[in-house]
Every structure is written in structure tokens, then in C-alpha cells.
């Protein structure tokens, strides 16, 4: 059985220790594992054909997503699904789906023109609709900044959370949930046990967005936990159990 891993563009194997271990495990299990970085190819899309039993979409790049679109149209098996990955990269879509699924998120507005948010209380976070790893997020503390803050296109605007506890990163592999606490002051991360109610929120995010392998960032204002970000197939850095959980999930998914 052949598994193809659509890799993100990074410079060395050391940038992805978790994935390196997953690949090793899958090969030890008898899978043929091929990896590729689309950014290094020149592809004739009309000649692209499904030639793996399962594609694992690790990359978040537009190039890989385009090729995934071509393979998806030919009914390739892709983990996570192509449509869920595209939807999750879009912050407005993601926030709307989470809200519709009654998952707590910060109060949010959608606008193409910040001047129209005159009734909204500051401070606010202005997030580009299609954003990766916090890129382009702006903080507006003063109302007068709304008129001068440049926006590219549609923006998701969210109230700034004033946390009463450290942020949690929850990593999900199928039904398993792993927690990492991020110290508010030092930024140091450490694995932590996850409360049942938070596990439940994480799993509900997965169902709402159609994702099997993903991470969420949870913050804690006085009113209770809110989900502030969702990423498909994150790095799983700092999750000691991740390589094994990922290998097992991908193995059973491929054989299902």
C-alpha cells in the first residue's frame, strides 16, 4: 500500500521530527511511503493522476492545495479531506462553522471596511481571512486606529481575550486529544492532562470542520474557554505521544 505525504516546504528533515518518526513507523509496518514538496515541482495538472492509496495533506501551501484539488476531483483519498482543509484555512468560514456548532468562540465580526465597526468596543484583533501562523494579525487598542488600519479584503475581527489562565493548545488525532500548556509570561510549553469538557470541545471542533488530525488554541477569559484558532495537521511539537498516535491513525485510516 502506498501513502504519499504532501510535505510543507522547510529546509531540513530536522524541522519535522514528529513526521520523520511517523514515516519510519509506517515503513516499518510495510507501507510504501513517498513524500514530496510541491514547491519544487513543475506539474502539468492535466497529467496528474492518483497513484497512492492515501494522500496525507501536511502542507498548508497554495501550491499543494491546488494539486490536492486536482487529485480530489479524481476521487483520491486525502487525509484530512481536501474540502475540510480549504475551509479551515479560511478564518471567516471556520468561525462561522464553529459558531453554528455552538462551540464557544470570541465575539466576532466580519467586514471589508473597518470604518463600519464604529459601534464595536476595542481592543480588537483584526485577522486576515486567509492567514497562516498568525501572519498579518493586527491589534487595535484605540478606536481612532480603525480608520487608519489597512485591510486587504474580508477580515475577521474578534474581541481581544483578557485571559485568566494560560493558553492551551489541544492536538487531536482521531478521538485522542493531547494538551500543551503555553506559559503566559515565558511562552514555555509543557504537556498537560486535558479536562473532559475541553476534550469534548476539541472533538466537536473536528466534527464541525470535518477534520481528523488538527490542533486548536483555547484561551480562558473569565466567562469560560473559547477557541481562538484551528489548524489542520499542525506540527505536534511538544507532544511526546504524537508520533505513535499519528502512525496508528494513518495506518488504520489507510487500511479502512
Amino acid at each position, binding site marked *: 500500500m502506498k501513502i504519499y505525504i504532501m510535505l510543507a*516546504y522547510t529546509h531540513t528533515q530536522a524541522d519535522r521530527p514528529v513526521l520523520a518518526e511517523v514515516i519510519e513507523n509506517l515503513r516499518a509496518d510495510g507501507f510504501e511511503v513517498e513524500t514530496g514538496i510541491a514547491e*519544487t515541482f513543475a*506539474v*502539468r495538472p492535466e497529467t496528474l493522476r492518483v497513484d497512492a492509496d492515501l494522500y496525507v495533506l501536511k502542507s498548508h501551501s497554495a501550491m499543494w492545495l491546488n494539486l490536492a484539488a486536482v487529485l480530489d476531483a479524481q476521487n483520491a483519498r486525502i487525509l484530512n479531506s481536501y474540502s475540510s482543509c480549504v475551509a479551515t484555512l479560511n478564518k471567516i468560514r471556520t468561525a462561522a462553522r464553529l459558531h453554528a456548532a455552538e462551540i464557544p468562540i470570541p465575539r466576532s465580526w*466580519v467586514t*471589508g471596511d473597518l470604518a463600519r465597526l464604529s459601534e464595536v468596543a476595542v481592543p480588537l484583533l483584526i485577522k486576515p481571512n486567509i492567514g497562516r501562523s498568525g501572519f498579518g494579525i493586527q491589534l487595535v487598542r484605540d478606536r481612532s486606529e480603525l480608520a487608519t488600519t489597512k485591510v486587504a479584503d474580508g477580515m475577521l475581527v474578534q474581541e481581544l481575550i483578557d485571559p485568566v489562565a494560560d493558553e492551551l493548545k489541544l492536538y487531536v488525532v482521531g478521538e485522542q486529544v493531547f494538551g500543551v500548556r503555553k506559559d503566559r509570561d515565558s511562552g514555555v510549553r509543557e504537556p498537560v492532562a486535558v479536562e473532559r469538557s475541553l476534550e469534548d470541545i476539541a472533538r466537536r471542533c473536528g466534527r464541525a470542520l470535518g477534520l481528523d488530525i488538527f490542533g486548536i488554541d483555547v484561551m480562558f477569559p473569565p466567562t469560560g474557554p473559547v477557541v481562538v484558532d484551528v489548524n489542520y495537521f499542525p506540527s505536534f511539537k511538544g507532544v511526546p505521544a504524537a508520533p505513535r498516535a499519528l502512525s496508528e491513525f494513518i495506518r488504520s485510516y489507510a487500511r479502512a
Partner: protein
Amino acid sequence: MKLGILLERRNPVITEVIANLRARGAEVELIEPQTASFELSELRVRHDLYILKSIASPMAASIAATLDALGARTFNPFPIVSRLRNKVATLAQLAAHGVPVPTTWVTGNVETLVPQLARGPLIVKPYMGSRGIGVAKVTTRDELLAAAGDASPILAQRFHPSDDSLDHKISFVSGQLFAVKRIFPLRTYDDKIGTPLPVDDRTRELAHSIARALALDFFSFDVIVSGGAPYVVDVGPFGSFMGVPDAPALITKRILQAWEEATRR
């Protein structure tokens, strides 16, 4: 009957369609993404049918996607319109159904395309582009690098010179076909209207192949005839229908039909 029309700019055809629909008793609300602003929790499906006139900007596409996720009925269907925005996936789909398209490359590294210039010019276009914006013909490495800029991925196609130096724009409305020829790029309003062109059997066959390949029954496409052979260079979900006789009446009829289908389901 409540209709929401998602549109990014108005033209005389759509303006007349809206007037027609209102005259037929429809409650029409225009949703213009560039000026839209709302609290997320207020976004609900409030219309029987949403017409996706254009979703080229990420904001428009997000609103459409969100409405679709909330269960809204859309014309054309959102998943199809959304896939059409991606030129890479669309080209592959067309080619798989035997529709002639220029040889196409997609890459994250523009240098890999340089050797192709030895065999003639390339057309570089944004993979998510619309209305011809950002489309450039390149013949040298410098032009290629300038046209690609920082974009990734880069979509490039073999350039085929048009036999009549014109672009043929074909509109397809539920099997009815209309064709105009226009210059490219468009410069004036008259350029946009173009000159009517009779629809021949080959064009008719091509249009039906595209309709099958992309599961569309309301769209427009651009064809270049080069060395006597047609090449489909673009397909759009709605099109401006400029230059099509009776376009407003036809579109109104098709929308009313779609609305009937939506309310019957």
C-alpha cells in the same frame, strides 16, 4: 420570494435582471461584500435562494461558503462555483473530459518554466484570477520573472496566437448558446460588448463538453482559435453576458426556474 444576490460589481445586464425580478414580485437583497459588515452570530440563511453572481474576492467567497455551510440554496451550486475559481483544478477537469486546453504548468519555482520559453511565449495568470487581471504574455526570462512576482503557485500556459486576433466569448444558458468576439485585453465599454458571432457545431459540442465536465448549465467561456484548432482558455460561472441579445430576460427566466426548483425541494 426572497432572493439574495451576491455581487461585487454591477453591470447593465445584472441591473436589468434585478429590476425584472423585482417586477415579478421577488424581494431582492444585494449583498456587496466590499461594503458588508456584520456580527458573525447574525449571519443566517434569510433568503429562499442566493445567486452567486461573483465570488472572486476572498470576502465574497467566504460569505458564500458560510451561507452554503449553513444550508443556504445557491445558484449556481456553491461547491461547483467554488471549484471553478481554481483554474488549476478546472483545467485538469476539462482536459480529463477531452476539452482542448493549452498545455499548462503549475509550479512554485518560476525558474522551472524558463526552458519552455525556447518553444514560444507563455501566458502567465493568477491561479485564482478573474476578469483577466494579472494575465501576461511573456517571451523572455525577465518578463516571466516579472509576471510571476512573488506569487505561488504560478500558472503558465502555452501561448496560442488567435487566428482572427480575437477572443471568442461563449455564453451557455441551459443549452442555449450565444457567442461574441472581443479583443483582449478589454479597453473600452464597446470592447466588452464585442461583435456577435454565429455559433457553429464545433463550438456547440465544446460547450456541451464543458457543461458535462464541470456539471454546469449556466456559464461562459473564452475560446481562442489558433491554427484552426480551438483552445478553451477560461471558464466563468456567471459571466457578464454583455453583448448577448435578450440576456436580462433569459437570466431572469433561468433564476425564476432555479427558485422554483429550490422551493419545490
